């Protein structure tokens, strides 16, 4: 099996988790209620912890140690989808992003737990249990706010319209897609997107919201090959500000 293909797969998962975890942590201390403040922090901790699990797998395959990989790369070396790097914005956008992303992640871990690569299957199997609570959380809030006041419905709809083309970018195909599918490593992005869309549509149907129609040209691809919005580099610069004072030091 092509090791590059597996590494590419692991990098995009790990980078997604790290960047979204970082974004979710920005709500600490300023959430709309104390309970949501705490919930976003929990999800942030899970995500950063999950990214570490994948960076460790990469380290076992000969890549640099997790701290170096996470804190020393530039934006064009990151494989995350653009959705996760967008600024946290208001709670409506953060909630919609969490909903769209975590359903994709849940489907991804479910499928990866069947992977022919045992190390990946083991990690995915464990994380499947964690992500369940993230989708439960998203479900409750989307159904609540998507049916509550005119303002909450309008806000969520507008955030959904903005986020959806980016969310479809989660499923940007790897250059090694066929290889991964044929070797049973991963079911592939197209299949994943189909499963995701069904679940997302099912929740949206229970609200006053409408999934927007997006043309292929409007989908925000590029993140997986290091093409990012202008928001990623400032995030990375901030994240590594202290680490880079002395990357060889123990902090």
């Amino acid at each position, binding site marked *: 099996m092509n090791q590059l293909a597996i590494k590419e797969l692991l990098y995009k998962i790990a980078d997604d988790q790290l960047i979204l975890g970082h974004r979710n942590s920005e709500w600490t201390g300023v959430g*709309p*209620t104390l309970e949501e403040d705490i919930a976003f922090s929990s999800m942030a901790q899970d995500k950063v912890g999950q990214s570490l699990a994948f960076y460790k797998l990469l380290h076992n395959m000969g890549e640099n140690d997790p701290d170096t990989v996470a804190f020393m790369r530039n934006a064009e070396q990151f494989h995350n989808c653009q959705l996760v790097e967008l600024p946290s914005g208001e709670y409506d956008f953060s909630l919609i992003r969490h909903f769209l992303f975590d359903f994709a992640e849940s489907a991804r871990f479910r499928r990866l737990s069947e992977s022919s690569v045992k190390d990946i299957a083991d990690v995915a199997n464990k994380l499947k249990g964690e992500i369940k609570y993230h989708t439960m959380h998203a479900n409750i809030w989307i159904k609540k706010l998507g049916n*509550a006041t005119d303002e909450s419905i309008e*806000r969520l709809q507008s955030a959904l319209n903005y986020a959806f083309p980016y969310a479809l970018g989660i499923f940007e195909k790897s250059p090694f897609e066929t290889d991964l599918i044929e070797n049973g490593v991963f079911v592939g992005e197209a299949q994943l997107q189909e499963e995701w869309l069904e679940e997302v549509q099912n929740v949206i149907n229970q609200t006053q919201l409408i999934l927007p129609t997006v043309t292929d040209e409007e989908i925000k691809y590029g993140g997986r090959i290091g093409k990012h919005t202008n928001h990623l580099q400032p995030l990375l610069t901030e994240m590594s500000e202290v680490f880079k004072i002395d990357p060889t030091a123990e*902090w």
Partner: protein
Amino acid sequence: MYGGGNSFEHLDLDRSLENEDPQLLAEFEARIARGEKIEPSDWMPALYRKQLIRMIEQHAHSEIIGALPEGTWITRAPGFKRKMALMAKVQDEVGHAQLLYAAAETLGKPREKMIEDLINGKSKYSNIFNYPAYTWADSTVISWLVDAGAIVNQLANSKGSYGPYCRALDRICAEEAFHLKYGHHSVIHLSTGSAKQREMVQAALNRWWTPLMHFFGPPDKMSTHTEILTRWKVKMSTNDENRQQFLDMYVPKIWDLGLTIPDPNLKKNETTEKWEYTEPDWEEFKRVINGDGPCNKERLAVRRRAEERGAWVRKAIMKPVEKPVTPLA
């Protein structure tokens, strides 16, 4: 995290207690003297209720405002270990606020009202959070020493008379013990690290020493008379007692790390077994507590902005307009 130096209301004892039933008051005091806890539905003097609301509310505000100076370092924490630990640590502080607002609510004041009083400046929070955390090292000194100070104060208060507050404090102290370990561990790494790291942590300690001495509140000789609050087990130890305990426990640990405490007069008097130190500037303390500190405006502005940005969410969950879902077919 929370320090002593609660701002208790001036007590006009003759008038504060004149409307209370003397028999009920005597029974109440006897229960406290026997070490019983007072529960929300029990009879209590109006003054007891008022002072407890004030104290628990200040404590809750301190947790939520205290999340801000350290919270700004979550996105900059160096390495996975610190990033994950700091996220969990600051999350705990927000969780403490939640617990404490709930404890204060049992006395009749709603959370929304308390937060409103915080934002409009009517109620106070711990003064120490009005100082900035300039560097990563500041955040580690806060996690270690401010939390250490808070534990001294909170352990004492957890032996108080009001049941819901004591139970909240028991849980809080258990979590703070982890914060202390995290903070100490981080400071150890800096103070035994590179020259740059040692310089960072020494500079942070220099900045935080005066706020730490202020943290326990003015000297007992300058403090409001609180005899009745002591008898009612609302106030469990004096500011000087807490400060002495903190110095006793942490000065040796700070010195062990090769750090210098920026007070040449700091030493333990072997005869009295008390620490002697330069009195911090109490005029500065007063200025800061009255709103004129380096970060008062910023802290309240951040909190106010968070409340404004989240208003639509709270409105939506409090007063949902139930709309039937339109059938698709």
